[in-house]
């Protein structure tokens, strides 16, 4: 009989399954979102760099539900040429695709007078170029399927260029803009694109040197819940938590003449 390519249980007419890919699954919001989607019965292809963490996460989930709901795929998003083959394989293993989530992201907090191109470059590569490389595979597939949802976890940091972190702001502003353009292209084909804009989330990110003090911060679990709600309701843009919508609304309306004098 067939060589079992994968242990993922396939959908049958009487046991349909929602299928999702999560890029950046093994840390922070990614992991909590994996738990949340597994609870909803999704079968998940988890993509990330660290194989050990991914495997442990998959084992934990599969043991909890006593069936294979998560499968690991080790991959570094900056190895762009590998993405087309990997994507095709994952879709074949899952037997289709309903949801694609890009939550991979890196951050470096420079000091106020520091310019660090090497770190900026890394942030743009992971936060923006990796997302573009993946989504340029996902988008045409969803477009011809006339369905599916794409979720990009961007950031409130992309809403305004601020003194603190020009490189990170740029990567996220680019990502937000890319997602908006994707939405404008794909909505007419029945595909929903969601931009998630987390404010501060209590992950390892906030323990890094020069990290800002947590303000209006939520736990990764709360963030995952917010993202799941946005997926379920097929939203377009969702702030996590919702309060940040108003904070950013105010902030984006501060005139430059004032904004450039603030240390915010």
């Amino acid at each position, binding site marked *: 009989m067939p060589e079992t390519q994968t242990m993922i249980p396939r959908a049958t007419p*009487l046991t349909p399954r929602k299928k999702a890919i999560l890029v950046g699954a093994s840390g922070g919001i990614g992991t909590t979102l994996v738990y949340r989607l597994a609870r909803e019965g999704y079968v998940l292809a988890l993509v990330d760099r660290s194989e050990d963490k991914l495997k442990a996460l998959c084992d934990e989930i599969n043991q909890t539900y006593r069936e294979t709901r998560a499968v690991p795929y080790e991959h570094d998003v900056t190895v762009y040429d590998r993405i087309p083959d990997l994507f095709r394989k994952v879709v*074949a293993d899952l037997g289709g695709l309903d949801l694609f989530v890009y939550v991979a992201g890196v951050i470096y907090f420079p000091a106020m007078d520091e310019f660090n191109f090497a770190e900026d470059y890394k942030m743009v590569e992971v936060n923006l170029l990796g997302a573009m490389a993946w989504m340029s595979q996902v988008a045409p*597939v969803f477009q011809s399927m006339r369905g599916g949802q794409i979720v990009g976890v961007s950031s409130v940091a992309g809403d305004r260029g601020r003194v603190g972190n020009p490189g990170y702001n740029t990567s996220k502003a680019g990502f937000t803009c890319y997602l908006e353009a994707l939405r404008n292209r794909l909505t007419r084909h029945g595909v929903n694109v969601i931009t998630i804009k987390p404010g501060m989330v209590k992950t390892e990110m906030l323990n890094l040197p020069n990290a800002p003090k947590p303000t209006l911060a939520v736990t990764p679990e709360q963030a995952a819940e917010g993202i799941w709600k946005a997926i379920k309701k097929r939203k377009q843009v969702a702030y996590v938590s919702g309060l940040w919508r108003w904070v950013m609304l105010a902030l984006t309306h501060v005139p430059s003449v004032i904004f450039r004098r603030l240390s915010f």
Partner: protein
Amino acid sequence: MENTFTTLENFGHSMSAPSYRFIPKTSEEIYEAFRLAKKSGLTVTLRGAGRSYNDAALNGGGIVLDLMGMNQIVEWDADSGVVRCEAGVTLEQLWHKVLPDGWWPPVVSGTMTTTLGGCLGANIHGKNNFRMGTIGEHVAEFTAVLPTGAEITCSPKKNGDLFYSMISGLGMLGVITTVTLQMKKIESGLLEVHAWPTRTIEDQLHSLEEGAPKYDYIVGWLDTITVGHGQIHAANYLHGDEDPEPQRTMQLSYQTLPSRLFGVMPKSLLHYLMTPFMNNLGVWGINTAKYITSLRRHTFRQSHAAFHFLLDYVPLWELSYGRSGLIQYQPFLPKETALRVWTEILALAKKRGLPPYLGVTKRHRPDKFLFTHALDGFSLALDFKVTDRNRARLNEMLQEFDQIVLEAGGRFYFAKNSETTHETTARFLGAETMARFKKLKKRTDPDGLLESDLYRRIFG
């Protein structure tokens, strides 16, 4: 070769799966698809008209070879009634070609939209299975392309092992590309149909068994809400001068199903009218009305197309079952156990509150094909409405049915059932058949490229 990533569905709209759809036009292009599949690590599923009720023509995330592009009738000999067609030719094309010359396909399905490739893959039967066997028994020869690129010709004499396994083999051994079929000579475009009611399941089984030797076709309808009520339709060909105008009745224009109801309403809208009745109460009403009208024993003449292709009478009828569609469950039972099992499963369905909305019964005889579903006995085809809420319970109940059927020596039909697991499949096919299939598969498809969602479900 054309290639799009598309979401494909099954006949009952109970499942969909996105796949890379290729539409090959030649054997060379079929082989090209296999090479591409091998290179990119994908599996290949064959698809004709997509009229299977389950996942036989679906391959989520993989390649689907849509053979509807190979749809030429290559050769037709009106003297001998032998026709050679490409595999994508539909039964509709076929009877349109042969009927005006006084011939009819020996075995047809309930819809004429199926392709010959699909009919052979599932080895379909008709309402004359007890007399004419399955479609495979009327195939003189077929050619096929294997995933290895080899082109072979099979007949009962030549490559006999592949002949008896690729027919019924669900397209998992190779791609049938052309089929040579023997048609049946007819003397009229009409059938003489006798209809009579049956009051109990026992009565219905008795009618099928007693009636079969006397008729060319026989089929029963079983009211599955008020269990027991039913009706038999039995038909005979007309011979000699029984039909005063055979030339006229064998014309296509005489046979073609009307496209409007009462000459006014386009039938393509009819399924919308059916939708409100597709619930327990509505079906009870329809069935009761149907039974009352069937109480009158009567005889009438009907065209071949009208008698055989009931499923085409209301275009898109399957949409009336709603968003989650329908599935069909058709167990085949030996003569001795049919009554007990039918009674038991219909009672169970009632108890679970999951009554089937349609029950169709037929008389069968065994055949020599590898994955044969037929046996000396009866089949009961049940249509179930699927909803998001009942899906899990339905699955659970059908698994119970499977155990009951297996214990009673029954068989299953891979073109129909959606729930059959690999454990059930292994039990009903038996170790010997499974071993023979594995061996053949290794020979024709050493890289294991041919796989479908059905294949993964039933072979694990």
